[in-house]
């Protein structure tokens, strides 16, 4: 009996909701996003959310998005995916089927993007993602997924070119050590680095795969000490970054060049925590506030950085910047499509050609951004300076590191 009454009440509420929702939502476009607000990716997930939020706030403050001569505000419906792939896929279903969103923004990390893409693809929902760089995302033939960032095999390739230029000896005598976590992202980076090492004709002397639950790197680092490679390339998220600078010091290991990922999220620049241990490390970055790119929204990169600092009180990491860029791309596609039809927006996305504060954005057939290079920054006295590629470098590389 009670169930029946409850059922009726729920039905009434749903009907009521259906009746009012088209009216209330009339000049708002809802984007759906499942981001990691808890779990292991929550630091980066929060950067992602702030990047999205800032873009929406900025666009709305400029009057919104013009679609077919009518102005729309943007809003984002968020869910916390708890950093788990199973959760993110079910939340995507929920966003599309229950909340009725027709357009999605990506989650954080390649793994979660990989989990969500089949769902958005199945429903034909265009998704612009900003935080899934694994190249395995772009050989599945996805039609509705577009990524504003550089793919992961490019992350540390520039370090190989740098050591070739700076080592002061023929490439065949240059030795390279690899320590890459056993996850898709780091293994992509490894593949990219190996391609470049082979192209230069250098020698790989160590090729370790770090366990996912990395807690100690003694064996790998003693190997580095024994073989003295010119370049050590390491990717193991923030735990790998923090551990390598800490343990290299403890074991008295030094290399002439050390290139890693995730310096910012490991807070290697924090002198209180790491002292001088992380000096002259090379860090891969998708974007930096000092790059020279600019666009119609937010103006220059440094201008974006300033707006972000005013809003959130800290310098935007690239995870936030690329997330903002994803919203800009989506808004641009709405305007060019001139309608809110999913397929029209998808086709507009495919022909995107934008200059933004984050860099140029043009998508390949597979959906990845082919117009923006990856940056390499060197950590000098607690600050990051862009040292490669040479056309955007602001500072000369300090070499050798030692």
């Amino acid at each position: 009996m009670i169930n029946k009454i409850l059922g009726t009440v729920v039905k009434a509420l749903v009907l009521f909701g259906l009746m009012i929702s088209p009216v209330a939502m009339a000049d708002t476009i809802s984007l759906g996003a499942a981001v990691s607000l808890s779990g292991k990716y929550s630091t980066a997930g929060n950067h992602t959310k702030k990047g999205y939020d800032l873009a929406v706030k900025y666009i709305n403050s400029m009057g919104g998005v013009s679609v077919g001569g009518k102005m729309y505000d943007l809003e984002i419906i968020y869910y916390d995916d708890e950093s788990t792939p199973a959760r993110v896929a079910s939340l995507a279903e929920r966003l599309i089927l229950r909340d009725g969103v027709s357009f999605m923004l990506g989650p954080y990390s390649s793994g979660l993007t990989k989990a969500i893409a089949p769902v958005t693809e199945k429903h034909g929902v265009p998704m612009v993602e900003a935080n899934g760089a694994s190249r395995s995302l772009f050989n599945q033939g996805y039609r509705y997924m577009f990524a504003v960032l550089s793919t992961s095999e490019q992350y540390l390739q520039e370090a190989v070119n740098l050591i070739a230029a700076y080592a002061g000896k023929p490439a065949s005598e240059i030795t390279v050590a690899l320590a890459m976590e056993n996850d898709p992202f780091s293994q992509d980076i490894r593949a990219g680095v190996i391609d470049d090492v082979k192209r230069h004709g250098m020698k790989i002397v160590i090729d370790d795969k770090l366990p996912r639950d990395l807690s100690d790197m003694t064996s790998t680092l003693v190997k580095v000490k024994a073989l003295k490679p010119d370049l050590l390339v390491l990717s193991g998220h923030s735990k790998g970054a923090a551990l390598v600078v800490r343990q290299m010091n403890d074991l008295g290991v030094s290399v002439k060049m050390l290139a890693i990922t995730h310096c910012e999220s490991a807070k290697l620049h924090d002198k209180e925590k790491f002292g001088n241990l992380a000096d002259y490390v090379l860090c891969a970055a998708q974007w930096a506030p000092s790059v020279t790119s600019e666009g119609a929204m937010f103006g220059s990169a440094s201008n974006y950085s300033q707006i972000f600092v005013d809003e959130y009180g800290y310098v935007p990491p690239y995870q936030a910047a690329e997330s903002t860029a994803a919203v800009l791309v989506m808004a641009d596609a709405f305007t060019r499509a001139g309608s809110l039809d999913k397929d029209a927006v998808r086709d507009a996305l495919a022909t995107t050609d934008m200059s933004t504060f984050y860099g140029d954005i043009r998508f390949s057939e597979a959906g990845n951004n082919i117009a923006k290079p990856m940056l390499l920054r060197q950590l000098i006295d607690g600050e990051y300076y862009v040292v490669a590629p040479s056309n955007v470098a602001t500072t000369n590389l300090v070499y050798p590191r030692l």
Partner: protein
Amino acid sequence: MITYLKILIESPEFLAQLLISGMLIGAIFALIAYGLALILGVMNIINFAQGELVIFGGYLTYTLFYQFGIDPILTIPIVAIALYAFGWTIYKTVIYRLLGQRDIFITILATFGIAILMQQLMQAIFGPDVVTANPELGMQFLFDRKIIIPNIQIISFLISLCVGAVLFIVMRYSRFGQAIRATAQNSRAARILGIDIDKVYASTFAINAALCGIGGSLVVMIWTIHPFVGLVYTFRSFMIVILAGLGNFVGIIFAGMGISSLENVIGFIIGAEFQAAFIFCLLVIILIVRSAIARKKREYLE
């Protein structure tokens, strides 16, 4: 692989470095494993939250160091007391309900639940970042700087041994230790003879938490921690206990040091990705050999 083996043979200082590092840090794992063995032996509970207790201890040291400026080494007693109280609370809220459960899965589920809860709470309180508390104590250079041992590893080795020794003496000679051992042997008989076994259980679990806390303080000083790395320490203490057996304190120390040293050498020779796999294979072999020996001896209960 052969190149790496050659290096170890030609330059024994690298082998020595791997073995010494492994032995020094192995003592910390032995400490954590001893706590696990203690509650497994006394209460028959497998604690899946062991690693989370370790990480919690690490975060306390980190916080006391950065927020209150206390030297990380000096935080160890504070952390031990705090974790003792924390362990007592967990016992009084959750663990005592699991005693006498015939189904081992219920205890595993419950302690696993505690582990997940602790992970999320630590993330909420301390943030998800990777942290380390470097006490900057310098290092020892042995054999013409060929072997480098950070002083903190030596200190933590000594601390682990001291704590272990104190515990060993308490268990062997004090009244309280006798009560714990009596409860482990036969809890009903112990209760009939006037031992407050609920209190024994509570303090056993609290002692385990304190041991984990001390281990965690040392871990955050030597490596790095983040809220989700606890499982590494749970599994490793498990392995040590399986290798050494319950209630065998000396065995646990040697198993702890042996596994860590071996792991370093294996990681050097065949690569870091096979470290864990190799140790697990070894474990399987040891278990098979053991059960074969046990079958030969055919013992029965009188």
